[in-house]
């Protein structure tokens, strides 16, 4: 018989009570037990940040966090960002600036970006670059991720919400030509 522990955790505002093995990883609870596949697994050893979620507002690596460690605490995942059809400004700007290619690092990157902008609502490009170095992306080379975070910053400072009537087929400027 497996040794099960009862835990209660709040995920994206909803409280769950579960029985888990002590060794069960938070990422597996989120993905498999709670049906939230947005949190991905990249390296499984705490290096890449693909599995980043917010625990009581601070980013952690859910691949190297045990579910029993978060008993009584509150977790936010990428699934909390959009509300209905409306994307979060960070999601909007990642889309607009093409801050993703395969999308695999994106949920972790977005949650890290939420934290960065909560801690420093008006960062410099250098700060954003340094701060997102916590998370690896194998596709983009980071440049457009930095641009996206910088573009989202004023929108979040102003508390501005995305206007869904603006449509989704907007174009972004092509590369600057001399």
């Amino acid at each position: 018989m497996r040794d099960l522990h009862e835990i209660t955790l709040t995920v994206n505002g909803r409280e769950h009570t579960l029985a888990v093995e002590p060794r069960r990883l938070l990422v597996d609870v989120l993905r498999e037990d709670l049906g939230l596949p947005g949190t991905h697994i990249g390296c499984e050893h705490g290096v890449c940040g693909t599995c980043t979620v917010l625990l009581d507002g601070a980013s952690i690596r859910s691949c190297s966090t045990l579910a029993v460690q978060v008993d009584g605490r509150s977790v936010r995942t990428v699934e909390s960002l959009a509300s209905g059809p409306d994307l979060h400004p960070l999601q909007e700007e990642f889309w607009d600036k093409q801050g993703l290619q395969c999308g695999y690092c994106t949920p972790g990157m977005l949650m890290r970006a939420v934290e960065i902008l909560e801690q420093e609502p008006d960062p410099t490009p250098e700060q954003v670059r340094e701060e997102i170095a916590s998370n690896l992306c194998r596709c983009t080379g980071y440049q457009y991720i930095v641009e996206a975070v910088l573009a989202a910053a004023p929108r979040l400072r102003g508390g501005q919400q995305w206007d869904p009537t603006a449509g989704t087929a907007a174009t972004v400027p092509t590369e600057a030509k001399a």
Partner: protein
Amino acid sequence: MTIIERRDVPPARTHGPRRWVGQSIRRVEDPKFLRGRGGYIADLVRPGMLHAAVLRSPYPHARIVSIDTTAAEAMPGVYAVVTGAQAAELTDPLPDFGPDPAKHTWRCLAVDKVRYVGEGVVVVVADDRYLAEDALALIEVEYDPLPAVVDPVRALDAGAPLVHEALGANLAYDRTFDFGDVDADFAEADLVVRDRLRWHRSGGQPLETVGAIADFDPSTGQLTAHTNSLSFTSYLFMAAATLRIPANKLDIRQVPAGGSFGSKLFVTKPLVIAGMCSRIVGRPVVFLEDRVDNISNCDHHGSDRVYDVELAVMRDGTLRGLRIDTIDDYGAYIQFGVGHHGNALAQVTGPYTIGSVRYRVRAALTNKNQQGAYRGFGSEVNNWMLEQMVDKAARELRMDPVEIRRRNFIQPAQFPYFIPTGNAYDSGDYEAVLERALELGEYDRWRAEQARAREEGRYLGIGLITAQERSVFSATEFWFWFDEPGAPVTSMPESVTLNVDATGGITATLYSCAFWGNSPETMVAQLVAEEFDCEPHDVSIVYHGSQGGLPATGPGGSRTTVMLAGAVEGASAKIKAKARRAASELLEVDPDDLEWTEGGFQVRGVPDRRKSLGDIAIALHLFKHTFPEDIESGLEESKVFDHPWTTMPSADRSDLGVFYPFMGHACHVPVVEVDVATGEVRILAYAAVHDCGTLVNPRSLAGHIVGGTAQGIGTALYEEFVYDDHGQLVTSSFLDYTIPSAMEVPELRIDHVETPSPYTPHGIKGGGEGGRMMAPAALNVAVNDALAPLGVRVTELPMTPDRLRAAIRAAEGAPPG
């Protein structure tokens, strides 16, 4: 020498003004990924699905004496335990294009002996991954360790331990090709520049590993598999044969891949393991590699080469001929043969008018994970080799590195240009790319800055390189190595079906597993919108499973956009032809009096007499009997688009024919500073100008340039799968295999020159691999430029601090240590 007919150059095409091609629209793929609903392989759950895990070899080379699986089989929650020997009863060897598959047989699990650290030995199927891994810990394998062979040069020595006894040596392939009059070029040369160069192995290492979910239905004999392996469709029948099921009973369903960069190209091992297990247990089984599996037991480490190169040069800087002798370390198996060198031969002479090439390749087998594909597929290594040689020639001639390149460029008027190997370059304007790069990279300012820094004792270097990016492969590169069996030229098709529903809405169906972070859906949406004057985001894109699908090859060799563009163009033309006839019936005019404009057909010069695509579609869907007998209901057409320009090699292989003709080009200009005390390299600035013909989505292409350059920075400075002298893999996690973070990748300045291909739809050339095909060469040149005052020339990648310090110490004459 056989004379090859070069007259069958395809007719040149022209293009009108465009509305959507060339626009950086938001990608249509992205919303699901942004919401965390990507639907990757790890996100798919089938009812009753079980989980497989693989026991890996801890030894680089050992006989398997015995395997005891009793305890694992008895463990609750375990459904099956399969050893390599048992797997060999149930499956055939994995598909292998290698020189002599029977002599280096490759299977999903090792039989009799293990040949590298990480090779799979036993697979366990259990209720979940935790239990499967628990069961692995209960398996007892007795090994009899054998001496390992790690260095590719020593592997070829007589008496080296044999990786495959059946081969009788570790040399899997050895051949020398001559293209052009090599001996004359070297005899007449004023100077022969020589070097030995070493490129160590790295790999794609996408953040998502490879996996497959297989679901075998014993009542029909059908195996349905979801996998993030790409390029599957065209060689699917080989995977079916391995599983011993008829090809028409294997259905591969597309799922998005979380990165590939070559490393998910035709990966059969996870599919075969999952398929075999599903057949045994009669339930769906997922096998998803963990990171250690993906680093140590994948199909796709990158190139691992030693080069001895000679470049024949005239005093005025003219480059005459190349003699290349390379040994490539393929690891324990050789699934793609030496196709990587075929790839290199597509552009072996770079953008230069070098007239002759001697190319010797020896493929060495060693006790390492095998080689496969990594962004560039061997051409990136050739680019690096050639640019190091050109750079060295400039130094020996005391010539400006810009000037020597300029002097040897193929000129715009010379296209289509046939290089000595026989491959054609369709078009280009290398001078324009160079000019723009010098400007964008502020070359002159940095040269002044470099001189100033030198006075302060700082070592700045500028790494100018000009190199090629071939695109749209024809599989010739995999088989022209062998005289027998001969094969006709391969066409590598790609297909699209366009369906216009009764409301005029358009759905495009794709037939290969095409998404890995590239933008096949966005490209198709933009191209369809271009044809039908609709919004790209209104086009629906779906993927057909392989079963009953049209011919499709999938991504690889920067082919996807060009090939999909051809298929969209062809299917659109058929749709428009039918719609024109229907409109002529509805408007009661001659079809020739109609013109396509703004999303419909109208009577020439009479704008109010028109039928939109929606008007036509509803009539075709619902009111077929108003049309003549031969017009059928509905509005759906398909196009199978074949490679637009490929020809046969000559029988004696002195001319390889046209196999990679749509030739991109780039100039990269990084500026680095080397800390000579620590060996650390810092990138101060980085400019990149690419020409891959007409751009479909410039932002998207720029993203691939930045991302590819970031990978090239990893290859040049940080990433290496290190096997120690005993064959132990010492970099089996991201802690030791160090992928660049945002702090190691600089802000790039990017621009494009657009020289449309005369022979492809819209003039598009492929561009997905370019960043990584340039950056390693550029950074090596930059570091050598920085260290030139010390007399240091680095000839080995990655340029880790310890390697740089060793080179600097050696130049200083100090004892190592």
